[in-house]
């Protein structure tokens, strides 16, 4: 079992290829890998509870750990305490933590 960190920087309402990243995360998790989806920059926008973005909830259900960059959330006035169920605010340090452990990291 490998560990993957997928970094999503794009807003799915603006970039249609975000679905590719979600699909990759879902498939990797289904294969038994440990997968983190880290949302940063405009990638945090669908983490809002009112956003029509069911894909993130589906990923959480599929066993993908979904984290959102706390700085990107603050920049956009999104409260870290009001995210979709299962999505946690996290400092960017988690990317360096995982890289240091040799995790496979993909930027999108």
């Amino acid at each position, binding site marked *: 079992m490998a560990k993957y960190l997928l970094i999503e920087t794009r807003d799915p309402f603006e970039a249609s290829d975000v679905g590719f990243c979600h699909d990759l995360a879902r498939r990797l998790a289904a294969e038994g890998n440990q997968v983190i989806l880290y949302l940063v920059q405009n990638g945090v926008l669908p983490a809002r509870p009112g956003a029509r973005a069911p894909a993130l909830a589906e990923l959480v259900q599929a066993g993908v750990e979904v984290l959102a960059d706390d*700085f990107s959330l603050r920049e956009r006035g999104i409260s870290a305490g009001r995210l979709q169920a299962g999505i946690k605010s996290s400092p960017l340090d988690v990317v360096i933590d995982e*890289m240091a452990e040799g*995790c496979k990291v993909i930027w999108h």
Partner: protein
Amino acid sequence: MAEKKTLTFALMDPPYESARTTTALRLIDIAVRRGYAVNVFAYEGAVLLPFARQQPHPNAVHGRNVEEEHHLLTKDVVAALAAEATQNGGKLDWVNCGLCVDERGAGEAIEGVRRGSPADLWKMAETSDATLVIGTR
């Protein structure tokens, strides 16, 4: 003492155009604060991040002079990251792609920046715990 880690980042974006640059520099900042060995391979527009001839400017629209505007220069950020790395017992090895530099006339980089080729990225990745490529698309 914690094991020294080596991380490599490949950057592609020019300064002042994308949030990707901010995130990339934040990541490098975290790594150098930990004393890690950090390699950066800058190609395409990213070779201008440490361009030595960047100049601060006033902002006439907001009525601010140079000092008041306190314009952030990415060359200063790169220098600060290198200093932070040294202070914490690590290092920042910044390599600018030579072809990309020549295309842009960006040869005047700040002290410490090396000129290299994509082969350097390969060597860096080979000796790193992890490599993160941050492309423009």
